[in-house]
């Protein structure tokens, strides 16, 4: 039975994602309207990064189950397809929370969600990773065929290959099951024809809906992605085919997208003209027509592209955090920022900007490197060598000199390789050290930020330093080097900051304060140890089964002992001590004791208490879980705690070269102490949260794919950004003048502009148009004294509102999308 909007509203009222998450609720309602009112088989939840699409998807699933319960229909099997690294995240969300206010289950409370609710009954997620063992028992016969047992299956998309299915009957069963709901996470991978796409379209044709998973017979599908397309807008068509869009719609969308992109390019080519220019105005009007009235330019009157897309795509865009972009450029010996807007014509700006000059001896290096790569590519062409990763090699050269010195490229038997090696060796070692221009720039830029942050705290002791995130795709060789030079530059800044604070407040010498802090920490830990021993006699020792090497020395000893040294080491950090100095009114023992107790030891105590109480002190017979499972849950949390308590230096790393400690570095980056800077490689571009203490994002290099750049910035710009009170996220690009990077930048920005216009990524622009007050403001600005030169190439607010496509879900109570806009 088809439902009405009102029915959906009533349904949605049974599950709210909490105050402050109304936008997510809107998305959930919009998806349900799509499924239940408009009878669509699939919907794409395409919220911007960091919105909580996971929660939205689970809410949709829960409410579909609730709806099925009402209608007395079954809703028993949910398949979640994701990449391996996200298995755990999904599992965690669906497991009982470690801390209050976390996990999805918190929302399934109250009268509508009794324990007997059919959805709660299937809420024991089964994760299928590469290592999952075959288990035929989990299959059952249902509806005349062998299917997976009811439940929520979180499946690594890589394992559902045809080859695996042949060898592992359980996987075949999963594949053949008729799912009530399929959730595809990071669905853009399917739109770009990576391997998992064949799960749905074994014949390579995504528009053939009668094949693949469950022979295409699954009931509903929900695709999640922050980037409905990455390289070309056409990927969106593929994505819509994945969610089984109506074929006529699909065709119309394909054509009208092409048309829109072409017209958009035309409009962009006119950006340097005055915004009064008739051609420019005409282009804008044309786009507006295509968007709102007639997607196919005369062939689809009444239906604009935006309307077509909104049938399947729901996209919340952020509005609370502003990002400001700038290019780092060298000005004399110093570095300054040149702000830019992403939708503006960036070519003239880039041409004018000195960026980071790559001149002098460095230019010679660059040319010879290009030559070497050219020769290597030539060899590859001739078949004497297979290596052709030109951009990778170039990136190494644009990253740092130690990085390129480690590259295998330099060990080739080519004249250019030998000469480069000669140059680079001389610059990396010996008396005539010569840092890479980018390294030099980064160190200065970060130092300037550090000084500004210190000053900010000095002026307002209630605040704390905002941290810096540096993204560099290939960092293995550069990271240690960057770490060293950054550390050398930053340590004195924070040390003198601390010294000033100590002097001003009459705390005495730093060593003495550190010593006193250590004493208090030792005492507090001892108290914790005693208390735990009393509360859980015999259960406080580190189990011998803990495999993590961090516990190797402590097996059989008290759990608290495993954390003592690392916590004590924190007293060597200037930021740690400074934090204490700024937080504590007077340097008395009682004050120090309280601070240590509350801020240092208490979090440890809380976690250990929970671990012992819930896992280690639990007898197997009292628990639903077998002993091994309890132990492994205990160890996981103890390891996380160990990572959180790790003392890091002022510069941290999150990359493949530091895989052992990178989690510790990441977790501490979200805490107030060290590291102040986190160097992140491509490993950390997706999926991790770094938003709590950070405000500066530096793109040390570029990704070809604007979606990935967006993902990078999304590490910080996400729900719960900890520095929201500081206004905006400061995003800086470091480009070497005249090199390959300039070309990449142009390519990325062009794609990014499509991205922004077509799927409305820039919330600020979207929000403004309907607001009369803001229109007035814009009007005022237009009449003000505008520097023509700087304004050339930019889009006016009016133009933005005319060409950008808005896919935001309407607020629950008012189906009209336009009234749902936020200010």
């Amino acid at each position, binding site marked *: 039975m088809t439902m009405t909007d009102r029915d959906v509203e009533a349904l949605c009222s049974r599950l709210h994602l909490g105050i402050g998450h109304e936008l997510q609720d809107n998305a959930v309602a919009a998806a349900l309207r799509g499924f239940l009112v408009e009878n669509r088989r699939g919907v794409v939840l395409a919220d911007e990064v960091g919105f909580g699409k996971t929660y939205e998807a689970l809410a949709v699933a829960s409410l579909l189950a609730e709806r099925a319960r009402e209608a007395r229909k079954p809703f028993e099997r949910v398949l979640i397809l994701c990449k391996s690294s996200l298995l755990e995240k999904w599992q965690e969300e669906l497991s009982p929370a470690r801390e209050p206010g976390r996990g999805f289950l918190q929302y399934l409370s109250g009268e509508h969600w009794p324990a007997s609710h059919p959805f709660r009954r299937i809420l024991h997620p089964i994760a299928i990773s590469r290592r999952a063992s075959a288990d035929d028992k989990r299959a059952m016969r249902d509806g005349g065929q062998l299917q997976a047992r009811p439940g929520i299956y979180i499946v690594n998309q890589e394992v559902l290959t045809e080859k695996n299915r042949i060898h592992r009957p359980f996987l075949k069963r999963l594949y053949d099951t008729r799912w009530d709901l399929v959730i595809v996470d990071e669905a853009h991978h399917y739109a770009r024809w990576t391997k998992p796409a064949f799960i749905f379209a074994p014949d390579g044709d995504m528009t053939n809906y009668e094949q693949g998973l469950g022979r295409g017979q699954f009931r509903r599908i929900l695709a999640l992605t922050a980037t409905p397309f990455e390289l070309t807008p056409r990927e969106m068509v593929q994505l819509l085919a994945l969610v089984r869009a109506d074929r006529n719609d699909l065709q119309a969308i394909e054509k009208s997208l092409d048309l829109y992109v072409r017209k958009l390019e035309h409009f962009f080519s006119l950006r340097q003209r005055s915004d009064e220019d008739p051609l420019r105005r005409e282009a804008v009007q044309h786009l507006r027509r295509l968007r709102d009235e007639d997607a196919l330019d005369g062939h689809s009157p009444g239906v604009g592209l935006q309307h077509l897309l909104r049938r399947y795509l729901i996209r919340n865009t952020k509005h609370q955090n502003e990002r400001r972009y700038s290019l780092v450029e060298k000005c004399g010996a110093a570095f300054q920022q040149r702000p830019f807007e992403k939708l503006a014509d960036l070519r003239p700006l880039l041409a004018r900007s000195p960026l980071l000059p790559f*001149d002098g001896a460095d230019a010679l290096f*660059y040319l010879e490197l290009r030559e070497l790569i050219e020769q290597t590519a030539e060899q590859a062409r001739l078949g004497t060598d297979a290596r052709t990763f030109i951009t990778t090699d170039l990136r190494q050269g644009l990253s740092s000199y130690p990085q390129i010195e480690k590259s295998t490229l330099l060990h080739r038997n080519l004249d250019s390789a030998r*000469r480069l090696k000669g*140059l680079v060796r001389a610059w990396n070692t010996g008396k*005539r050290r010569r840092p890479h221009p980018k390294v030099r720039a980064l160190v200065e830029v970060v130092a300037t930020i550090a000084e500004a942050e210190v000053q900010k705290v000095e002026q307002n002791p209630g605040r704390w330093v905002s941290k810096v995130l540096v993204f560099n795709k290939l960092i293995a060789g550069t990271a240690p080097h960057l770490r060293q030079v950054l550390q050398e530059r930053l340590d004195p800044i924070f040390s003198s900051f601390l010294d000033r604070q100590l002097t001003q407040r009459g705390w005495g010498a730093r060593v003495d304060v550190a010593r006193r802090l250590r004493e208090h920490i030792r005492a507090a830990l001892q108290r914790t140890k005693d208390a735990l021993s009393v509360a859980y006699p015999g259960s406080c020792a580190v189990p011998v089964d803990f495999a993590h090497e961090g516990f190797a020395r402590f097996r059989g000893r008290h759990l608290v002992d495993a954390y003592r040294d690392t916590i004590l080491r924190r007293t060597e950090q200037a930021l740690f001590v400074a934090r204490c100095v700024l937080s504590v009114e007077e340097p008395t023992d009682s004050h120090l004791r309280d601070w240590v107790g509350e801020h240092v030891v208490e979090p440890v105590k809380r976690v250990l208490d929970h671990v012992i109480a819930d896992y280690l002190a639990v007898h197997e017979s009292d628990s639903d879980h077998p002993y091994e499972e309890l132990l492994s849950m205990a160890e996981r949390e103890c390891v996380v705690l160990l990572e959180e308590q790790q003392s890091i230096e002022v510069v941290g790393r999150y990359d493949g070269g530091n895989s052992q400690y990178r989690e510790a570095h990441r977790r501490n980056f979200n805490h107030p102490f060290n590291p102040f800077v986190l160097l992140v490689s491509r490993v950390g571009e997706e999926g991790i949260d770094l938003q709590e203490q950070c405000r500066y994002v530096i793109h040390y290099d570029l990704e070809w794919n604007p979606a990935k750049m967006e993902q990078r910035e999304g590490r910080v710009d996400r729900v719960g950004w900890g520095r929201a009170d500081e206004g905006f996220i400061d995003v800086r690009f470091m480009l070497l003048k*005249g090199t*390959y990077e300039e070309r990449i930048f142009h390519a990325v920005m062009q794609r990014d502009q499509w991205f922004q216009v077509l799927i409305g990524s820039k919330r600020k622009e979207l929000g403004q148009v309907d607001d009369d007050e803001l229109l007035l403001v814009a009007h005022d600005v237009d009449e003000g004294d505008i520097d023509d030169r700087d304004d050339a190439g930019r889009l006016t607010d009016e133009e933005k509102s005319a060409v950008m496509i808005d896919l935001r879900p309407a607020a629950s109570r008012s189906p009209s999308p336009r009234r749902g806009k936020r200010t």
Partner: protein
Amino acid sequence: MPSEKLLLRDVIGSFAPGQAFRAVLLLSFTFDGVWLEEALIPELFERPAHTALVIRDRNALLREAPSVRYHRADAKHSTRIFHPKLILLVAEDRALAIIGSANLTRGGLERNLEMGAAYEISEEGGSRSVFDGLLEYLSVSLAREVSGASAAALAETCVALREVLAGAAKERQPRQVFLHNYDRYLWAQLLEKLPHPYVTRVSIISPFFEPNTEKSDDPAFTAGDDSIFAKLFDDLTFDPPSGEKPVTVYFQTSEGNKTLLPVDKLKAWRDRISLRVRSSASDDARPLHAKMLVIEGARGPRRDPYLVSLHGSPNFTAAAFLSRPPDGNAEISVLTRLPWKRDGHAQVRAAMRLDTLFVEVDDWRLLRHQAPAPLVQPSPDAFMLLDVTFHVAERRLSLAWKATPAGATNALVLVELDGSWSSVGDAPLGTVAKAELTDLQQLLADEDGVLTLRAARVRVQLRDKQGAVLASAEAPLNVDCPTDFCGLAMVGPVMATLDEQIAHVGTGTPVPYREQLKFLELRRAEKNKRGNKISVLTHQADLDRFFRNLTAGFRGLRARREALPESEYTLRRNLKELAQWCGDAIHADSKVPSVECRLFLVDRIARELHQVLEDIDEGSRLYRGMPSILAELELANTVASAGRWARSLTERSTASYVRHTVQRLTSLEKQVGSLR
């Protein structure tokens, strides 16, 4: 059949589309450089033209060209009349020669009634015999007319043409023969080529018969020209159809029926000569400048009839047919055997519209012979400038001449500025007939950053100690890098940086001449509008583009070498270009972003040069030719100066790199030495 109407621009435009001109050679008696610059040069240089040379008569210069884009040389061997008219275009796999009567003047190419024929050759076929003769003429005979840079340009033209001919199809039955008169009189060669001396009819088309001073663009010669008519009747036996005069002379008159035709002398053959004068009433009012001879052989016992034509530069004069260089005229022509038919001769006349363009002269008495003033010819042994070349990179003017008068101590170089001759420098004379000048402020102008020559012609006065002028001569001023110039402005490096130029050469897409002209025009207009100095293009400091340009350029050169491994022309060009860039790169004001970029470029060129030389098979034809090529290009000098430049670099952070480059250049120097 040389009757087709030719539109020169069409011929040039449709020849070898898409290919560069490896060589352009123009020969002319009179020369109007100013007109040429406007009318033909933009067309010619619309595509890359590597070598361009004009050779003309030093005494028949109407206006010097305001351009150094192509080499101009005054014929030095033919001191009397240098009279050939030729347009030769050599592309990669084909060549085009236009041999006719037209000089490089407005009259020749626009206003006169001219006649010429275009011959093309390629692997598909063509007039092989004409080109074989032409090549022999260029490499042996014409080579005597030039020296210095012009001789090098001519040699390059020969190499290019030789390569086209090497790949060209053979001719089964040659119908044409190329003739020139450097070794033997044309008349003798003509008689020799006729199957027999019995002729039915002869048509003579000629604008000149006698000295003519009114017409400045054609030869003047001394009296005695009647002898060619005498030779005609002496050497040929006429057997005309009854009642017909065997010889028809097509000529023209000027106002008042004055004519150069020696009417009085012709009266002796009045019964055998029919005169037809250029009709003033014809619809085509152009003055006659075409030259042609059509001879129809008579049928008889053991002899077949025939029909031949001779066209080209020779007028029907003794100077053309009965003299030879250096004291007589220099001429070229093509003898064509036409298929004989009963009315063949009439068909030729009809095709050339001779019957409508000319009318019969009934009454010879109305014609009045007009004898011109005798020609003043400088003595063949007089002081003569052979070569004046400006070496741009070094800002150096080198002069070469012959016949230094006794007592001369210094050479004063002058150029014509604002209507008067001003000195640009003074060089003391040594023992050789050469001089060099370096301080050339007067010769050069800097038009907002564009180096511009103030003249394309110099006068050199040899003076004695007291300053008295002992001898004076003029000569065209050439530059060592003509392809960088548009007119007199060195626009190449301004419009394109060195790396861009390298890319252009490599990919074969230099900036067309018209674009250059437009650029200069725009700059002038801008300057006038704003009244302030316009900044010249500086390097865009785009390292990556710099590299890509170099790579594209070198790859282009290499591709050409690989495609044509046996080609001497390609090898020469490769070496020449590399040497040129090497010289440009080390030069301080070359448009290269930084010393490091220059260092890289020099190093890169050295690698390329090494590879070029390395690839030549020992014992091959090319290998044997290397000594002369290397000497001609002065490669050893270029490499040596690059080495000196590299050694002068002292930046410590690049010391290891510089050391390698120096080593590379040293070993390259040795390599060049061993090949020499």
